[in-house]
């Protein structure tokens, strides 16, 4: 099973409250996997455990066959695990160009000598800046690349969230409700960007916008109060009675 | 901003040329603000009292005080102020220095600029060694501590506990007392060192009480710590338990004694000056001081300021107004003065003060508390050197 990202009997509990129950999630290479579930199903807590912000109570997280459970968040990013945030978590006074260049310089940290990293001017890192500009162009943020992030429109900030995650050249990309707060009409632009992502990036998408999920995902896992209800293709999930029950609330 | 400073400098330089001719300038570096603000206030009031009494000119030359605030124990500020007084204001004398670190920091300036520097309060023995241009008119801690040990032994006390503030001068007082007292055959039961920033004396005093000494010798700087200790002393009922309280004059200092209240009655202390000292010079000093500042009670620091000015006046008189560093020091060495505290002399060899040290007891004299002197040890040199 060439799962690029895998959890093995992952559990997380705050005292008596079990937020993640014995979860065995596995993300195949190049997958377009969606994770859906009602509010409070523990989706964001799961992402925080995958990215190392939260330590699980038990079980483990594997990336490319390496146990990263005890690893610090920045090391996981270096190994290719990147994420976006449900609520914009950006750098208000940095410009998009500075923010994305910052990610790329950090990624290339090993290649740069200490002097280059510490004392040479940022503007001398021409390759990193050009790569950043190219990425911003791809997400049509190029014309705003000099505007302070706090001055950007909400939609553009959502795109910048994506840009920051992509700039780390991830093997695995965790998208935490990318379409959150984006009005119906504008999510197409976002969908276009998602679609254009290269196939060697495996994506785990957490989303409520069912139209985006069913247009984008090739596999879907339904999470209910921290446990995996069912995993399958979009078609299987659409017709599965338990899913309808959970969502339409007739259930237990 | 820059232009303002520029014309300021030119005005200053021009002004100086004119004034240098007939005014003798005394640069006073003193703690006028901060925790030790009362040190500066007392010294400068004492100096002004002398000038009020003897006029502000001598030998045809007008005497001018330039007072600079060192803001507290801040050696680099004191050194900078002294440097500016010498280089910009062209003072003829430097004076003041309530705290030892400020005096140490200015010593190199005094030496390099050959400026006679009068120490009006700082009490660590080593100060006069730091520069041949320093003379002291106040006192040294060892000078007032040793007589206390001698008197204690003479009055039959054999077992004493010492409590001192935990800093340089405190350690000196502790060692001087212990050396003198044990040499005579007495025994020091224990030594306690109290932190300088110390709001709570209770436990220390309790520890002293529990070891039941005949008396406790205390040295803490004048002001808040003295008040704190006396309150704990009274609250823990050491007096009732028959434990006498001996101290240097700092604890029962004239400016603080009111704040101590009746708990200070009966405390025996040794110091060079008490406001109750019966001498015409003292009465005149107190009258002159009241004209300068009626609100505060003058203490030994004010007398330091007063005698400092007396020494300066004497030097200017003998040099007939043209003050030269080396000549001034020659005159200061061995100089004798009758001070409000009694006869004083500046030792020719060490340029430190030789004076009577009085043993006093706190009594109520027409409604106010005073340290009433009942014994005098004459012409005490600083044992610290």
């Amino acid at each position, binding site marked *: 099973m060439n799962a690029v990202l895998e959890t093995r009997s992952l559990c997380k509990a705050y005292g008596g409250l079990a937020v993640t129950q014995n979860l065995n999630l596995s993300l195949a290479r190049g997958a377009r996997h969606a994770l859906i579930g009602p509010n409070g199903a523990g989706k964001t807590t799961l992402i925080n455990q995958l990215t190392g912000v939260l330590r699980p109570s038990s079980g483990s997280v594997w990336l490319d066959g390496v146990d990263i459970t005890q690893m610090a968040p920045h090391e996981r990013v270096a190994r290719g695990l990147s994420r976006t945030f449900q609520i914009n978590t950006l750098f208000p006074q940095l410009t998009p160009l500075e923010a994305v260049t910052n990610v790329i310089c950090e990624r290339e940290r090993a290649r740069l000598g200490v002097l280059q990293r510490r004392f040479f001017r940022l503007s001398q890192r021409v390759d990193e800046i050009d790569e950043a500009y190219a990425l911003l162009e791809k997400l049509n943020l190029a014309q705003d690349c000099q505007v302070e992030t706090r001055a950007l429109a909400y939609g553009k900030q959502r795109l910048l969230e994506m840009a920051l995650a992509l700039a780390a050249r991830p093997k695995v990309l965790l998208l935490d409700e990318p379409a959150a707060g984006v009005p119906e009409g504008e999510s197409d632009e976002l969908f276009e960007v998602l679609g254009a992502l290269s196939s060697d990036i495996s994506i785990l998408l957490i989303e409520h916008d069912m139209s985006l999920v069913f247009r984008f995902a090739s596999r879907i896992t339904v999470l209910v109060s921290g446990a995996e209800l069912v995993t399958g293709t979009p078609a299987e999930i659409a017709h599965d009675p338990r899913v309808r029950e959970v969502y339409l609330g007739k259930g237990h | 901003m820059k232009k303002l400073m520029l014309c300021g400098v030119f005005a200053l330089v021009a002004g100086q040329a004119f004034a240098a001719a007939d005014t003798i300038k005394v640069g006073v570096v003193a703690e006028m*603000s*901060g*925790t030790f*603000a*009362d040190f500066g*206030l007392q010294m400068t009031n004492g100096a002004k009292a002398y000038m009020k009494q003897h006029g502000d000119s001598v030998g045809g030359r007008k005497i001018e005080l330039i007072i600079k605030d060192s803001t507290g124990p801040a050696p680099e500020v004191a050194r900078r102020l002294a440097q500016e007084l010498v280089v910009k204001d062209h003072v003829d004398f430097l004076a003041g220095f309530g705290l030892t670190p400020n005096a140490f920091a200015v010593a190199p300036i005094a030496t390099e600029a050959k400026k006679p520097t009068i120490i009006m309060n700082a009490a660590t023995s080593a100060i006069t060694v730091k520069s041949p241009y320093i003379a002291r008119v106040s006192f040294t801690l060892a000078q007032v501590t040793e007589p206390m040990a001698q008197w204690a032994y003479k009055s039959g006390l054999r077992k004493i506990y010492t409590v001192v503030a*935990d800093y340089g001068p405190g350690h000196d007082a502790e060692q001087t007392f212990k050396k003198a007292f044990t040499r005579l055959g007495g025994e020091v039961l224990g030594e*306690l*060192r*109290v*932190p300088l*920033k*110390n*709001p*709570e004396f*209770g*436990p*220390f005093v*309790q*520890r002293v009480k*529990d070891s039941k000494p005949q008396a406790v010798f205390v040295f803490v700087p004048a*002001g*808040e710590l003295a*008040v*704190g200790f006396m*309150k704990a002393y*009274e*609250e*823990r*009922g050491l007096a009732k338990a028959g434990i006498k309280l001996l101290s240097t004059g700092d604890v029962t200092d004239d*400016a*603080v004694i*009111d*704040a*101590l*209240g009746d708990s200070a009655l009966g405390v025996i202390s040794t110091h060079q000056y008490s406001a109750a000292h019966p001498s015409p010079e003292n009465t005149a000093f107190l009258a002159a001081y009241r004209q300068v500042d009626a*609100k*505060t009670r003058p203490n030994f620091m004010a007398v330091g300021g007063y005698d400092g000015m007396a020494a300066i006046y004497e030097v200017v008189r003998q040099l007939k107004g043209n003050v030269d560093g080396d000549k001034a020091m020659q005159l200061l060495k061995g100089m004798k003065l009758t001070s409000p505290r009694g006869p004083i002399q500046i030792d020719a060899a060490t340029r430190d003060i030789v004076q009577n040290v009085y043993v006093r007891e706190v009594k109520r004299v027409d409604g106010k508390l005073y340290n009433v002197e009942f014994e005098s040890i004459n012409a005490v040199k600083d044992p610290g050197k």
Partner: protein
Amino acid sequence: MLNLFGVLFDGLAYGTLLFLISVGLSITLGLMRFINLAHGVFAMTGGYLLVILMAHAGIGFVAALPIVFCVTALASLVLEHTLYRPVYKRTPLDQVLITVGIVFIAIASANFAFGPGQQPVQLPAALKGQLDAFGLELSRYRLFLMAVGAAITLALVFGLERTRMGAMIRASVDNRRTAQSMGIRVDRVFQITFAIGSGLAGLGGALGVNVLGLDPYFSLKYLVYFLLVVVVGGPGSVIGTLLAALLLGVADTAGKYYVPQLGAFVIYAAMIVLLLLFPHGLLGRRYAR
């Protein structure tokens, strides 16, 4: 064995005093998230007010205390309205700067009005000396301190937990916007909280004159002790502040009695250890600034 009780008693009494003075700061800092370094100024005002009332107006020590509380509380309202209100929403640094400015003005004014020296306070006979209780000599003044401390703690806890006003205070702190939307006049609530906190500081200052002494430099000199107790106890939690005050009071007193040569190390070391163990204070709420 006897002096162990003695040390404990002294420690608790000293802790109570620290609590009285600091609890006001805990309220303003924790409940209103306002860094009020000028808290010591209210304590100092209380002290000087006591001196004036007793020396010039001839009012007794115990009678003067409630007056000190009310006058300081009212005075703090004036200050809150003029200088503090514009800075509530500003950065912590701006709050530090303006409150330090107030401290400097208070020091200079006290120095100008009362001179740099210590202020004498004559305790009434009933509170002087010691009381023999089951073989232990307990200082009357410290007993009085602990009684006042206990009374105020009860009043505060009861006030915050049980009364409507307390509920409004806690509500407007937890979520200012929701409280406002529920019709609570949050500004009015903060004003009253601030006044109570400052009044307590004034009372603490007055009670502290006999132990800590009083001079113009009081508010800066003891600023460290107020902050120490509040931060270790957890800002905003009355019980936390009391716990921290008593703990640090006993630690300081025991340190001075049993290992005097360590002197001031004990209280500072205890503080750092407690901060490491409880990064958000003993009972502090986990609000991240």
